[in-house]
């Protein structure tokens, strides 16, 4: 039987009964009653409490650690330092991962773990941390990536040389890698331009801001088997990276995921889990660890801050002729920012012939960045869409028309090499133009901006099973995490394929012992990829049900069909048989022929590109510099909304995260290189009274690789946000901001600057 990867069976005229409706999600009840168990909500008999000692210095050699007083404290059961981790060379993947969770030679940021303790109570563990003596030799530090690139900058790693830059001198550097991405000939392109716009932009790291701090329990048994409970977007990836740094077989660790209290990319890499495992090993008891919010800010992954120069040219009738960019990405002390997404996505959605992008990733004394929705793309698109908007203004063209004129269409070959099938960028732009928001007059004293964005959407390694119980009800086991309601969407797709109601289906998470490897739940891949697996499984089950029915009736398998949850004769010629339900067949054949199940292990391909256009109105308070978003509309092509309410919720959430990034969120370091705003009070994320309702216009240009036309949802909605807000502010005050966040102090400066502009100089 061909798998779903060869034959999705997508039919543009299919009549869907369940996909596209809004059933209550099965995990919802537990979440409104407090029953749902998140990372910190588990307890094991004999459990100890672990705490991490963190460096108070941004950059320091660790000369020695004396933990003897902590070890002697009554109630302390184990203490670990880097000496308890296997020794892995610096500058390797596993070496960096080890050093990020436990400093070895040096502490490289304020909050870098240096030791950990497990004790019979949290109070004792905290007391023990104070008894650990670390002898630091404080070194000069560097926070800003442009400073880190200067010749006399403090060097984080003596071994580091810039990859991909043969011209770089053979001496230590903070630039990890240089990458050039090009297409055509930009000098020719700029020569053909009537208008050229070029600006510098910058953005600051922001935090993913999940409300659930990391929480886990590790239980290391004497025979070397490890049970790990944790909140994660990537149980299998955690397992395999943990075994890589602990030098164990993957089968030694079983990861069981809890409910996930938000992740947004930030729970794709582990933080306290290795400590919990090693503390448990040493103490021979389970160890629970829960990070504090201060630790989450100081020690877990923010998003890359960036510096960029972006230059584009267009003809006076609005055709873009060239695009050039120079990009710098902060990555914290170790490589791994996924900065390469930016050159592949920043201009992608426009049909460009001449592109030249130079990207560099730079280490500095800040926590290692982690993924965040569309990693490294939105903060660069902030600049790209500013340049686009300015070009449209300069030639006097409507900003949506300008984008339409340059929009990529079906058959476009993207800069990263893929040639696209059906895509919906034009449809999304047109839907934006036709939206009530865009057609409504702008209230007096406000500004309006639009911006567009793209994300690849992803597939990847995915495994899952679908099992029929003897009574014909269905259980589905998946190995991804549920970041935004994927369980109900998966149940809906299975119900649609099987022609049964969703309440006959239950979807559960696997632990890592139970399924094949599943890639991280990120990149807008989960509902798409798991949907492919689950529909494929349903088809296997249907085929077996047909075989068994044919056997019961004594007719050839071709003589039966499966329709709406029943097997029936294909025609009256086959015979006069009463249709049989799933339960009829499992009851009749289970004893003789065994249980029925479908399972698939795939590298899912065919993810369809996603596009969004955001429309934003803002009001700028000239006295305080505060920017209020007064109206917001997200227009996005998702291919097909499986559960429209959840799709809306996910794009609304993305837009509001983007508003925080646009207007307020940033890390503030003091002159010692320590984070000064490591709390929700001082690192202020948007609260309910900061934002308006977010209108959504969901466009559905199906992706034919998927049986129901699905693309992906979660990454796209944060990509255009800051660009749209920036363009709206430019429209309101006469100067388009180029530095994120567009916070009150910066806005007051821009308002002052705008006073001196003539009408023609105004944005």
């Amino acid at each position, binding site marked *: 039987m061909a798998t779903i990867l060869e034959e999705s069976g997508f039919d543009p005229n299919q009549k869907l009964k369940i996909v596209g409706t809004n059933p209550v*999600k099965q995990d919802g*009840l537990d979440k409104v009653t*407090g029953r749902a168990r998140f990372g910190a909500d588990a307890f094991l008999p004999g459990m100890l409490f672990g705490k991490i000692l963190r460096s108070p210095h941004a950059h320091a050699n660790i000369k020695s650690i004396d933990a003897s007083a902590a070890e002697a404290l009554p109630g302390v059961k184990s203490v670990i330092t880097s000496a308890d981790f296997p020794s892995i060379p610096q500058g390797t993947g596993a070496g960096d991962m080890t050093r990020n969770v436990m400093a070895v030679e040096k502490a490289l940021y304020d909050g870098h773990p240096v030791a950990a303790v497990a004790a019979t*109570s949290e109070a004792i563990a905290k007391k023990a941390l104070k008894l650990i003596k670390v002898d630091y030799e404080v070194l000069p530090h560097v926070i800003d990536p442009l400073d880190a690139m200067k010749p006399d900058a403090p060097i984080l790693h003596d071994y580091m040389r810039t990859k991909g830059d043969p011209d770089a001198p053979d001496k230590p550097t903070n630039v990890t890698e240089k990458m050039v991405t090009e297409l055509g000939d930009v000098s020719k392109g700029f020569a053909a331009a009537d208008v050229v716009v070029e600006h510098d932009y910058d953005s600051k790291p922001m935090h993913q801001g999940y409300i659930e701090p990391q929480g886990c329990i590790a239980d290391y048994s004497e025979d070397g088997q490890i049970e790990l409970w944790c909140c994660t977007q990537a149980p299998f990836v955690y397992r395999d990276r943990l075994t890589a740094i602990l030098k164990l077989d993957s089968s030694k660790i079983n990861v069981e995921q809890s409910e996930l209290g938000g992740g947004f990319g930030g729970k794709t890499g582990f933080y306290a889990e290795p400590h919990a495992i090693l503390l448990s090993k040493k103490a021979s008891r389970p160890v629970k660890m829960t990070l504090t919010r201060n630790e989450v800010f100081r020690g877990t992954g923010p998003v890359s801050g960036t510096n960029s120069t972006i230059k584009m040219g267009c003809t006076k009738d609005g055709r873009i002729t060239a695009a050039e960019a120079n990009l710098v990405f902060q990555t914290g002390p170790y490589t791994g920012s996924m900065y390469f997404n930016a050159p592949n996505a920043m201009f992608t959605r426009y049909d460009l012939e001449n592109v030249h992008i130079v990207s560099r990733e730079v280490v500095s004394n800040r926590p290692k960045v982690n993924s965040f929705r569309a990693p490294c793309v939105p903060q660069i698109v902030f600049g790209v869409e500013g340049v686009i908007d300015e070009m449209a203004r300069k030639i006097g063209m409507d900003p949506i028309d300008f984008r339409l004129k340059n929009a990529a269409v079906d058959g476009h070959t993207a800069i990263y090499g893929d040639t696209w099938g059906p895509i919906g960028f034009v449809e999304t732009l047109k839907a934006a133009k036709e939206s009530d928001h865009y057609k409504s007059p702008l209230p007096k004293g406000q500004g309006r901006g639009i911006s567009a964005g793209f994300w690849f959407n992803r597939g990847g390694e995915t495994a899952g099973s679908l099992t029929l119980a003897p009574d014909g009800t269905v259980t589905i086991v998946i190995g991804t995490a549920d970041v935004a309601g994927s369980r109900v969407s998966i149940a809906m797709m299975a119900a649609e394929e099987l022609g049964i109601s969703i309440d006959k289906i239950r979807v559960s998470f696997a632990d890592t012992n139970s399924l094949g490897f599943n890639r991280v739940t990120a990149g807008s891949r989960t509902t798409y990829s798991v949907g492919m697996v689950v529909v494929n499984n349903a088809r296997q089950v249907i085929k077996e049900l047909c075989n068994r029915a044919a056997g019961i009736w004594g007719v050839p398998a071709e003589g039966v069909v499966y329709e709406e949850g029943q097997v029936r004769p294909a025609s009256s010629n086959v015979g006069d048989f009463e249709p049989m339900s799933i339960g009829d067949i499992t009851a009749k054949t289970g004893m003789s022929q065994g249980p029925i199940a479908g399972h698939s292990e795939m590298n899912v391909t065919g993810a369809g590109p996603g596009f969004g256009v955001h429309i934003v109105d803002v009001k700028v308070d000239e006295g305080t510099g505060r920017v209020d978003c007064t109206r917001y509309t997200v227009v996005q092509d998702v291919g097909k909304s499986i559960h429209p309410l959840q799709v809306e919720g996910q794009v*609304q*959430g993305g837009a*509001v995260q983007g508003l925080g990034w646009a207007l307020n969120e940033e890390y503030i370091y003091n002159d010692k290189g320590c984070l000064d705003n490591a709390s929700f*009070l001082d690192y202020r994320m948007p609260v309910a009274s900061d934002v308006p309702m977010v209108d959504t216009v969901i466009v559905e240009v199906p992706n034919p690789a998927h049986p129901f036309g699905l693309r992906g949802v979660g990454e796209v909605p944060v990509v255009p946000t800051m660009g749209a807000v920036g363009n709206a502010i430019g429209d309101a005050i006469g100067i388009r901001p180029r530095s994120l966040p567009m916070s009150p102090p910066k806005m007051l400066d821009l308002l002052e600057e705008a006073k001196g502009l003539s009408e023609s100089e105004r944005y």
Partner: protein
Amino acid sequence: MAKKSHVTTTVNGDEYEFLSEPGQTLVDALRNSLGLTGTKEGCSTGDCGACSVQLEGRLVCSCLVLAVEADGKSIDTIEGMANGDELHPLQRQFLELNGSQCGICTPGVLIAAQALLETNPDPTETEIRYYLAGNLCRCTGYDKIIRSVQAAAAEMRGS
């Protein structure tokens, strides 16, 4: 070791007793001494609202209340919000309208919204937004939370 205090408190109508270490917060006692983990701890500094409970009918962040302050008092948490099998209108509307995504902020938001509707049965959108401004949510962008509260308020008013 410092002496522990004996605390007797009523949670969701049931009497509980526990020994509290000096400095133990109410959220810690609820979660770790009484096993009521529906109340979440997101920041321990009173900024995120995930630990919202009602103490003697007053909305508080239970991370800012000492466990000993609950002695002789009554506490309402998310575990007591439904009446047996019958969900509170807020819980039902959050389910129907997708007011809960990942669900970590949901117990605190529901408790805060309940406190709002007890004092103001017909709040405006702005009033809801300001009342819930102490409850951070990173998933929803607040839109569906606000709509869920509006729908529950309308249902409770019988309109």
